[in-house]
């Protein structure tokens, strides 16, 4: 579904991603670990095509289409979606409006289906009527982002730290809904969606079964492997050590 080859990206003249290659097939969920500043968020923003992220080299193909020159909204139309870690607040634009926009609806009224979806995320009508992200708590931001994604229903979903700043109860709820969004409750051959999840703490991994995990260091994928293994290594040994262990393993193979 998503193919990234030899990608080099600059942000404000500084090279953040360097010769990165990554493939995500339909039905797969990948997890991306990495220390702060290693380029995880930059990768997501580049896939989404935000203007400050300049591709200097390489290729991104989504569903067989070269998307490098497409604006963000065209990429979204092709079927990608993103849950932001720090979404901006927009005065006078309500969460309910955002949901309608994500659904591609022009009306002001909120669809019954959305209200149902919102209920499952413990989002009340009052909350739908609040200006999006204004004064939202950490958990509220996540739930609002996921509600918008549910409305948008993309085939390929990127999550930027769905588990940061969220209490345990909410992580479980978010994890459950994400699993569903990513077809994790279906048999592997029936899974149509794909996802890329950034996590710093790895706590969301308890609720989502991923197919593959990567460790990113200094703008490259330094190590890839089975999610359990990688998660365990990262948690126990830290990023650098995990990469070291990965390389050793590669060497002995």
């Amino acid at each position, binding site marked *: 579904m998503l193919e990234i080859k030899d990608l080099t990206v600059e942000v404000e003249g500084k090279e953040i991603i360097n010769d990165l290659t990554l493939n995500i097939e339909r039905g797969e969920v990948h997890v991306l670990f990495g220390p702060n500043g290693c380029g995880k968020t930059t990768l997501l923003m580049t896939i*989404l095509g*935000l*203007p*400050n992220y300049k591709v200097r080299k390489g290729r991104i193909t989504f569903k067989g289409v070269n998307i490098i020159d497409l*604006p*963000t*909204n065209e990429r*979204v*139309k092709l079927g990608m*979606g*993103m849950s*932001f870690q720090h*979404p*901006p607040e*927009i*005065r*006078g*634009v309500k969460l309910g*409006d*955002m949901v309608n*926009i*994500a659904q*591609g609806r022009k009306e002001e009224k909120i669809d019954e289906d959305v209200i149902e979806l919102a209920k499952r995320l413990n989002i009340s009508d009052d909350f739908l009527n609040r*200006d999006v992200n204004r004064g939202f708590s950490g958990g509220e931001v996540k739930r609002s982002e996921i509600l*918008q994604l549910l409305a*948008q229903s993309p085939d390929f979903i990127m999550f930027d730290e769905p588990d940061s700043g969220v209490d345990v109860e909410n992580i479980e709820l978010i994890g459950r809904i994400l699993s569903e969004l990513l077809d994790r409750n279906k048999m592997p051959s029936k899974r149509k969606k794909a996802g890329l999840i950034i996590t710093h703490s790895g706590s969301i991994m308890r609720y989502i079964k991923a197919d593959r995990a990567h460790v990113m260091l200094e703008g490259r994928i330094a190590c890839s492997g089975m999610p359990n293994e990688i998660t365990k290594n990262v948690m126990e040994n830290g990023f650098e050590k995990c990469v070291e262990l990965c390389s050793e393993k590669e060497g002995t193979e």
Partner: protein
Amino acid sequence: MMRKELLERARRAKTKKAALGEDIAIENFVTGGEHEPLNSLNEIPDEYKQNLLDSGIEPSEKDRSGSFLQRDCSVVFSTVKYPGLELMSTTEAFKKHDWLKDYLWKAIPVDMDKYTADVELDQTHGYFIRSEAGKKVTMPVQSCLFITSDKIGQKVHNIVIAEENSELHIITGCSVSHAVNSALHLGVSEFYVKRGAKITFTMIHNWSPGMEVRPRSAVIIEDDGVFISNYILMTPLKSLQMYPTAYCVGKNARVTFQSIVYAPGDTKIDFGSRAVLQGEGSKAEIISRAIATDSAKIVARSDVIGEGANAKGHIECRGLMLSDSAEVDSIPELKAKLKDLDLSHEAAVGKIAEEEIQYLMARGLSEEEATSVIIRGFLNVDITGLPEALARETKKMFDMSLEKVM
């Protein structure tokens, strides 16, 4: 004050320049003749119907307790459907009510500037609206001041009185026909909110690039009285300057001013709202949203003066710049004359944040659509205090005006 004395004071102020706004040569504009009266608002020629609709006026008179239309300098329609409500031209009202002279120039000094003076010396009607004591007229009254002739100087004096414990909701639309290249609108409006009464005043200005506009408005609010003003301007004009003032003289008198201004082209606007809190526990809230694009220049003023014990006032003005050749000057002022007061303001002028556009694009909107959603959101002030149907309708009018400019 006797009429003779008023006239004398007006004469002396004939050349007195206004404190704010560029000076207009009133003598360049003429008084127009009489137009054919109408039997119903719907009889207005089709070419003008859209002008009325665009300024919130319903030609079918549906869901209106009364309708008033002044075309240029001539009152062509005035009707009332509800008992307890009076609506007619001010000229008519002065003939009918001898006592009305006690309300003339009581909220605004006749010699404030050359514009007030000229309205006294060369008045061309205006509307008089009054709700009787205890009568709650929840269905809105509509009044339209319409200009259809070139070079016209429309000089109206409006007087609105809500008697004790009554309620009055007014939609007033000021509009101009596309055939007019240049015209002047001088509008004096005096509002009297008696004890326990409430007036909501929703004004839509639907002007055109050749219009010069100088409204002069003031409100006197007695004990427990409420005045809510909603002002919407979304069309270009040559110049507008106004600074309506509410005097909360009574105990617990309350005023809210909400203004939404979108200035395109070469529009020059100097607008503001002022509240003088004299009554004990009186309250004011001034909210404004101003967008300047192209080469428009906006001065957004607001002023709360606290003079009464435990008075409370808040100002919230936000400006949005959409062009480098536009200008927004935001001037919030607070004056405290006692220690037991609570006055505050927040003001901000900025541009559309890039990350807001990107966020909306990530939900599937194009850059243009995203910008439009952000502007719409910026201007979206929750209108409070209106009856539900009117609030809905005001929102509709606002959306419609916005639709036209976006």
